[in-house]
């Protein structure tokens, strides 16, 4: 097969503790150097927490695997300083087209709104993405990446976890105050703890073929039901960087996975899709089935599960890695505060509550897509086909066509960390919602709101065209000087040259957050709204801040 990427080989470097036969207690050990584990490591390092990352292998993801990365995950990576590289390398897209037979049923635009820093989606091979994350992690003195280090057992003690780690030099013990298991859908940590991973396994098989070719297709997601080149099954086309294209063919449950992976089976399918005269080479082929499953809770004592080890979805909707990264985003600031003695341990239960809610939402969406793409009964198929038929002429039916509801971030509606609204606000920025972006000017430089939400608590005070009242500034300065990491900004309509000013140059902040002069937003370190008011109230703000850290 053709290779557009040469896999790095990371060397095993024996740790001091293994070489000297000593046992060290680390604040945090992350198991698994995939997208989720590396994101967590980078975020810990940003917060000054040293972290050991153990990975059983010595390279990045083999095969392109997860290809679609959504806005929210990219915003997290952008906060961690690696988003730009991914977006620059990736294929930016936002248009999806759905075909039935040889007719287009409808098309959708994932980011119809202007003025966001980060695009709706990029396509990027997982190996590139992991390569960027590893490169960034290697720059940090606080991240200790250990390759060829396989965790073979995990034992929870009262105040720490003991891991037995197998390396080329043998087995040794590693102790950690906290362990984050990011070891994927087949998580061995989950098995060691004997935890049930419950849900649904779907009876269908899909073929992934990544091909290298020069083609003129646009950077869009094309999905077919019953295409002429692959009758009675679905197919998907996605552009990746380096002239690599992701093709996905539904095969049905009876297909033989080993047989279907053979080039002599794959090539005719690809030729039928692309036309016999389009030259291409296969880069990667895989046959997969899928499941929608999750752990009941993501926290088990001092072991926390994040990413596919905690929840697994079907690929339709790109909700796998795109929900794993927000897991890390949600967990790391909480654990950093707990380690620092600034928040009680039960704050970590809110990690489980919030991310279980997100997993439920993702599983629901992914299951519904799967039921549409792979109807489970004759009647289900009849309704599905009826929807597709009606969708050509009737707009209502287009809304029912489900070829994957693409990943969007979860609003933590019922989170105990939210302070419920006392004042009336319009729009989507309810407590628990992920903050939406807006262009702003900071220190005279054009930038974005998301850049100001830098991993600390952030208070936005809408100053309108007036000044920030002295008592408000004093109270906010006092909070910023307090024990919790916090920064505050005065949102102004036009540049006034005051300290800590965010100029709402396009008026989008006012519009998207329904700001009126005097409005206040408290935003969490993971860029979710915690509370908001129409008028500044020092006591209410302090109470909301305490509530957001579980105090």
């Amino acid at each position: 097969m053709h290779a557009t990427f040469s896999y790095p080989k990371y060397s095993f470097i024996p740790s001091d503790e293994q070489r000297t036969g000593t046992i060290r207690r680390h604040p945090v050990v992350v198991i698994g150097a995939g997208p989720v584990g590396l994101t967590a490591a980078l975020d810990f390092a940003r917060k000054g927490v040293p972290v050991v990352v153990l990975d059983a292998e010595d390279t990045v993801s083999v095969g392109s695997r997860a290809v679609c990365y959504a806005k929210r995950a990219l915003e997290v990576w952008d906060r961690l300083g690696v988003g730009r590289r991914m977006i620059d390398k990736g294929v930016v897209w936002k248009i999806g087209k759905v075909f039935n037979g040889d007719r287009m049923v409808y098309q959708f635009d994932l980011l119809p709104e202007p003025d966001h820093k980060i695009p709706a989606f990029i396509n990027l091979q997982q190996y590139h993405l992991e390569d960027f994350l590893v490169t960034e992690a290697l720059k940090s003195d606080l991240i200790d990446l250990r390759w060829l280090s396989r965790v073979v057992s995990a034992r929870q003690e009262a105040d720490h976890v003991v891991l037995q780690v197998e390396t080329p030099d043998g087995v040794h013990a590693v102790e950690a105050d906290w362990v984050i298991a990011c070891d994927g859908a087949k998580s061995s940590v989950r098995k060691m703890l004997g935890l049930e991973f419950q849900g649904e396994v779907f009876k269908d098989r899909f073929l992934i073929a990544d091909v290298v070719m020069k083609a003129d297709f646009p950077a869009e997601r094309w999905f077919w039901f019953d295409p002429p080149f692959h009758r009675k099954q679905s197919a998907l086309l996605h552009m990746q960087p380096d002239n690599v294209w992701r093709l996905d063919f539904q095969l049905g449950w009876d297909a033989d996975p080993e047989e279907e992976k053979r080039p002599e089976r794959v090539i005719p399918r690809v030729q039928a899709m692309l036309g016999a005269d389009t030259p291409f080479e296969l880069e990667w082929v895989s046959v997969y089935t899928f499941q929608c499953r999750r752990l009941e809770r993501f926290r088990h004592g001092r072991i926390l599960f994040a990413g596919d080890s905690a929840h697994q979805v079907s690929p339709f909707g790109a909700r796998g890695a795109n929900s794993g990264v927000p897991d890390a985003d949600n967990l790391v600031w909480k654990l950093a505060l707990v380690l620092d003695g600034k928040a009680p341990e039960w704050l970590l239960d809110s990690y489980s509550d919030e991310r279980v809610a997100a997993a439920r939402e993702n599983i629901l969406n992914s299951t519904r897509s799967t039921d549409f793409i792979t109807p489970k009964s004759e009647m289900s198929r009849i309704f599905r086909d009826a929807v597709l038929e009606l969708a050509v002429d009737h707009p209502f039916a287009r809304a029912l066509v489900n070829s994957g509801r693409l990943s969007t971030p979860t609003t933590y509606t019922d989170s105990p960390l939210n302070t419920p609204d006392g004042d009336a606000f319009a729009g989507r920025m309810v407590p628990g919602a992920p903050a939406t972006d807006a262009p702003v000017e900071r220190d005279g430089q054009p930038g974005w709101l998301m850049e100001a939400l830098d991993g600390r608590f952030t208070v936005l005070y809408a100053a309108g065209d007036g000044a920030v009242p002295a008592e408000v500034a004093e109270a906010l300065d006092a909070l910023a000087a307090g024990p919790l990491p916090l920064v505050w900004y005065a949102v102004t309509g036009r540049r006034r040259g005051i300290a800590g000013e965010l100029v709402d140059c396009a008026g989008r902040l006012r519009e998207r957050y329904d700001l009126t002069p005097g409005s206040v937003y408290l935003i969490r370190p993971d860029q979710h709204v915690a509370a908001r008011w129409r008028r500044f109230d020092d006591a209410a703000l302090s109470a909301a801040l305490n509530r957001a850290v579980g105090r």
Partner: protein
Amino acid sequence: MAKLMTEQRFASPDDVYQLLIDGHRELTPDQSTRLNAKLILLLANHIGDAEVLAEALRVARQGVD
């Protein structure tokens, strides 16, 4: 909240019944099933109320299994 109406609402019930029967004329059972599916989707959207649809499904299901 809208409620499923089950009292008689047609000006001419026999005409409506005949419309349904005529609409399926000369169709095989498979074709009729397809037609019914499209009809249900069109009418469900026309009603535009998931609660009414849920109630109709509940009533329709009685005695079926």
